[in-house]
């Protein structure tokens, strides 16, 4: 297992429980959607997976090791293996840095050897941006292009897992579909955990999904199976709520 969560609980205080008894696992190479609405705890779950918060109880395992934000040797390895992509491509790129510096940051901070510029060029190419983007600033790009820059930063250090947090929700439909395609291409060679409220996007992108409601996993399994016969009432309601195109 790439990632394995066992009875993970999290609360900011005893009375404000955000996650209760969350368990699921992510196989190497899988693409898993974490689906939930506001208050489902999906963002907190992502912060736990990024090692930014510690579970109140329960364990998260990465391969054979327990995820421990205090273990700096482990965290260096973990940071290299796990990279995030965020929702808002405006807030996720430092407006005062050139694209080259933005994308090269993981290489520098993780002290990865080699000519960084070449790695950045490869990453830009992989996300479909021209090489001269390196010399420019984020504000010179559109929302979709900025999200490509953020994805380039996530893949530049060749991670094993991408954790995406509503990574296409802020984009226009015509842009969204292209970024979904980009994620789909990337997911062929790495593990993707895609957090989203948008079941349509998750259905198009992920083979498996985990449905969260009020901090609990209500259903998980193959995307195809859940869509075909949702078992939990919440999943059924969620599916029925999605507006469809007229025939």
């Amino acid at each position, binding site marked *: 297992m790439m990632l394995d969560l066992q009875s993970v609980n999290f609360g900011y205080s005893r009375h404000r429980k955000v996650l209760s008894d969350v368990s699921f696992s992510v196989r190497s190479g899988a693409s898993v959607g974490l689906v939930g609405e506001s208050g489902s705890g999906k963002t907190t779950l992502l912060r736990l997976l990024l090692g930014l918060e510690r579970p109140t109880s329960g364990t998260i395992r990465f391969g054979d090791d327990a995820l421990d934000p205090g273990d700096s040797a482990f965290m260096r390895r973990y940071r290299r293996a796990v990279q995030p992509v*965020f929702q808002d491509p405006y807030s996720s790129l430092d407006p005062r840095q050139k694209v080259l510096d933005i994308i090269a940051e993981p290489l520098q901070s993780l002290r990865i050897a080699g000519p960084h510029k070449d790695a950045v060029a490869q990453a830009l190419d992989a996300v479909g941006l021209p090489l001269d983007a390196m010399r420019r600033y984020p504000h010179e790009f559109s929302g979709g292009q900025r999200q490509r820059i953020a994805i380039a930063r996530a893949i530049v250090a060749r991670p094993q897992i991408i954790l995406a947090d509503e990574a296409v929700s802020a984009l226009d439909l015509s842009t969204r579909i292209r970024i979904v395609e980009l994620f789909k291409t990337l997911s062929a060679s790495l593990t993707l955990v895609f957090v989203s409220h948008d079941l349509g996007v998750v259905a198009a992108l992920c083979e498996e999904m985990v449905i969260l409601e009020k901090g609990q996993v209500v259903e998980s399994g193959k995307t195809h199976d859940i869509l075909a016969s949702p078992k939990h009432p919440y999943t059924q309601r969620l599916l029925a709520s999605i507006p469809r195109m007229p025939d």
Partner: protein
Amino acid sequence: MSAQDLSIDRPARKHSLALSIGLALVGLNVAVALLTLFWTPYDPLNASGGRLEAPSLLHWVGTDRLGRDYLTQIMIGARTALIVGTGAVAIGATIGVTLGILAAFATRLLDDVMAATLDILIAFPTLLLAMLVVAASDSASLWSAILALGLAISAIVARLTRILAKRVLRQDYIVASRTSGTSWPGVVLRHVLPNIWPTLSVNFALQFGLAVIAEASLSYLGLGAPPPNASWGRLLQEAQGTVYTAPVGAIAPGIALVALVIGMNLLADGLRDVGDPTRGRSR
């Protein structure tokens, strides 16, 4: 998006005009201050003409009660003003930015305590604080005035830095930076400082102007640079008694003071956009 569409770019020329005038006024001051290190029209300490002479070709701004050349005194006053402004802002910036960044990272309780302390310090009148520090030191000196003003500035800078840094720390690029493996000090150097710098630098320029005025006030009250160092404040105070017979003595240092302060303010205004790659177009 719509909010962006509505914003109409302010004409860029206004900024560059403010910047040019500010640079000219401050630049003139710096040039004069540097010049006094090598040359002054007359010996600043000894009489070079009659007492209270009116402006003439020999003494462009006239002479003081002891017959010393006024222009020379004002030129040396420019040096004093720059030393005070630079020194006070340097002290204020170093202490203030450090404290502000620490407060931004502190736990809720510590942050609250720091914020309250800063508010109290800021509420305390700068001049009074400066007078206390000067009075507490053995003798009135330029350095105790600079230290006092620096401390007062540091409280203002710390509060501003804390607010600005907290805002930056909430951005996703900070989380992205952390998960890229960047350490907290790295995050501060790489992302926090560059993003708060434009607002801070404008504030530094404003504080510089205020420090110069505060030093003039201290000197006017006899708590600033002790005599051989000419200070505009002391020149004003000395000219007070003879303001009706020799008004130039009071007007000239006043003009110099106002020019430098306005220059710094214009520079602050103009600086806002310089070095900002987004030039106000970012969200």
